[in-house]
């Protein structure tokens, strides 16, 4: 009987699967533990303790998962690409867990919900989804883990049940998200039809010759719509400003950081592995159809839309949202540098961007709790109200703007030089890099606008002199700012690790 032989032959891989996927399993178990603890033991306690205990369990889970991952073998592939382990993926997963840790820590002082257990459980399950997303080369798994992540994030967006904007943002996020999921599914179905398989390598093997099958182009476009939504690239960005503004601050921070890192990694993997052979060319005078020109157009559009729309924003959260769209444009340029260590530069950029934007949202959360709003005017005189917070915000904002020696500058420099490296497939994309640099100069205006409010504008009356931020918040934000500073001054540490993980072996 064929079935028995098949099952028998794969018998060993169950144990292997359990070992390799243990970090994800630990995260899922931690989520269950948080839920159970909240249900059985913590109900009667004060919210502050519930948050602290749930967060502690979650953090233990994250740390345990990181620890397990360090002990794993460097390479693994179970069930024909359904779950793969490679050094780069492991690094990204560790990065995701670190981002989750910080998200949990900046949620510690939040007061938007009384459901502490459910909140942290959903954060953890979203993280598990992102980790699965990073460690697969199969479109079925990509779709499922994308949905796991998305569903958790919709919930996290809607978590503040008293707030109209939270519910509204979640509904918009959900409607745009599930529509783009439908596009993705349709695109994947065409890919399956063309290749007869769901494995990215098999799909790439079915692409032959320079002339692309029109259905392949259709599949490509539809897949890009789905993933473009996930990373908030224009013109699929319409949800982002509302979600960043309406969602509870820690949720928005998580969506802007973790989900973006995972999204870009999987976008790069799908494009470089699944559509290998369908690159085309986006060079100024050498256009060829393929995914490179498609993403180049999206990159240009995102940078233009993001940077110019950010200029007129008065809400800091919306400003950060449009700046995130612009950054998605920069990172798409990194996806185009797919050969060599291009992917390493993209990951350096997205990880440091994740840390930075997490910090920025953390500061916004504190300010919003103290002043009740996130308008630019609410930040007026922050440097006198709480100098520590102001300095942290300055570091985050300057890093987002790409000022040396912060991580944002190093990331941009590294990524653009990778694209323009001789022999890189993105070599013809000089026009895009020039556009990116020009628009970065434009972006300085709105970033400095925020800093002007913080450091120059007078504090609005003595009535708003509030006590400084809670100590835990200050420590966490300080740690984030320090990380951004150190990663900028000594980028070699992370870059070498990423480039080393890229090396074949």
């Amino acid at each position, binding site marked *: 009987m064929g079935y028995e032989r098949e099952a028998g032959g794969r018998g060993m891989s169950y144990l292997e699967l359990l070992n390799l996927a243990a970090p994800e399993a630990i995260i899922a178990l931690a989520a269950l533990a948080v839920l159970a603890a909240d249900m059985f033991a913590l109900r009667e306690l004060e919210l502050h303790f519930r948050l602290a205990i749930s967060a502690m369990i979650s953090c233990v889970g994250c740390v345990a998962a990181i620890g397990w991952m360090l002990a794993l073998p460097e390479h693994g592939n179970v*069930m024909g690409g359904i779950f793969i382990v490679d050094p780069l993926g492991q690094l990204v997963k560790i990065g995701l867990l670190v981002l989750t840790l910080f998200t949990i820590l900046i949620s510690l002082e939040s007061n938007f919900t009384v*459901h502490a257990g459910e909140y942290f459980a959903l954060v953890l399950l979203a993280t598990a989804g992102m980790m699965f997303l990073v460690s697969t080369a199969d479109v079925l798994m990509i779709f499922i883990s994308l949905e796991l992540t998305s569903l958790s994030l919709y919930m996290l967006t*809607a978590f503040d049940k008293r707030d109209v904007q939270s519910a509204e943002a979640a509904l918009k996020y959900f409607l745009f998200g599930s529509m783009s999921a439908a596009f993705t599914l349709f695109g994947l179905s065409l890919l399956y039809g063309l290749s007869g398989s769901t494995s990215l390598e098999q799909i790439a093997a079915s692409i032959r010759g320079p002339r692309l099958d029109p259905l392949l182009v259709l599949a490509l476009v539809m897949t890009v719509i789905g993933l473009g939504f996930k990373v908030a690239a224009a013109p699929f960005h319409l949800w982002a400003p509302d979600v960043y503004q309406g969602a509870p601050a820690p949720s928005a921070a998580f969506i802007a950081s973790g989900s973006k890192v995972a999204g870009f990694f999987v976008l790069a993997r799908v494009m470089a592995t699944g559509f290998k052979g369908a690159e085309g060319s986006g060079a100024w005078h050498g256009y060829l159809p393929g995914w490179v020109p498609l993403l180049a157009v999206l990159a240009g559009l995102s940078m233009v839309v993001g940077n110019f729309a950010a200029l007129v924003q008065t809400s800091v959260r919306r400003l950060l949202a449009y700046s995130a769209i612009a950054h998605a444009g920069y990172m798409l340029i990194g996806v185009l540098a797919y050969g060599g260590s291009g992917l390493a530069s993209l990951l350096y950029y997205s990880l440091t961007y994740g840390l930075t934007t997490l910090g920025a949202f953390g500061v916004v959360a504190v300010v919003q709790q103290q002043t009740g709003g996130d308008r630019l005017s609410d930040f007026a005189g922050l440097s006198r109200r709480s100098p520590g917070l102001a300095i942290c915000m300055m570091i985050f904002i300057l890093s987002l703007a790409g000022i040396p020696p912060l991580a944002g500058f190093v990331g941009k420099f590294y990524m653009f030089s990778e694209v323009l490296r001789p022999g890189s497939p993105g070599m013809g994309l000089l026009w895009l890099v020039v556009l990116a640099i020009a628009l970065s100069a434009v972006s300085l205006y709105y970033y400095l606008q925020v800093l002007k409010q913080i450091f120059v504008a007078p504090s609005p009356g003595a009535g708003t002199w509030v006590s400084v931020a809670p100590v835990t918040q200050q420590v966490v934000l300080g740690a984030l700012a320090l990380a951004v500073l150190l990663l900028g001054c000594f980028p070699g540490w992370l870059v070498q690790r990423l480039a080393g993980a890229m090396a074949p072996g």
Partner: protein
Amino acid sequence: MAQLPDILFYVFAFLTLACGFLVVLNPFSTNPVTSAMFLVLTIGSLAGLFVLLHAFFLAAVQILVYAGAVMVLFLFVIMLLDLPAEERRKVKKAGLVLGLISVGAILTIMLQSLLQSSFSSEAAPTLEGSTIPLGRLLFTQYLLPFEIISVLLLVAMVGVILLSKKDLK
């Protein structure tokens, strides 16, 4: 009698598209209940197409899960909220036209690429009793996705309870 599947194909195809059309654009009613009921019919005729494609198990799942569970959920929520029919007011013409143009463009591109592409599609050999290998695959090759789906359902459950429950203060 070899013609019967062909005739059924056209019948189900017509039903699917006609009911699908009535879901989104019903000239007689804009009541969400009507949309939902026509969605049930669309799902049913799709299940018929699944049977013609020899995916018997999926046809059953389609009826049980979609027409049974999901649609009941839809109807339940519509009734719970007691939604009125969509008002016939001045719709934003620009948005409507823009939407229809983009849909038309997407459809044109889809049909064009369909007609241009060449599939070597000979009718596959008849497949019978495909449920057993399906079950085996689900617990061997596709064990991990299966487990992830269970986590996903947990997320949906936790989230839905949390969102739809009234907070007792």
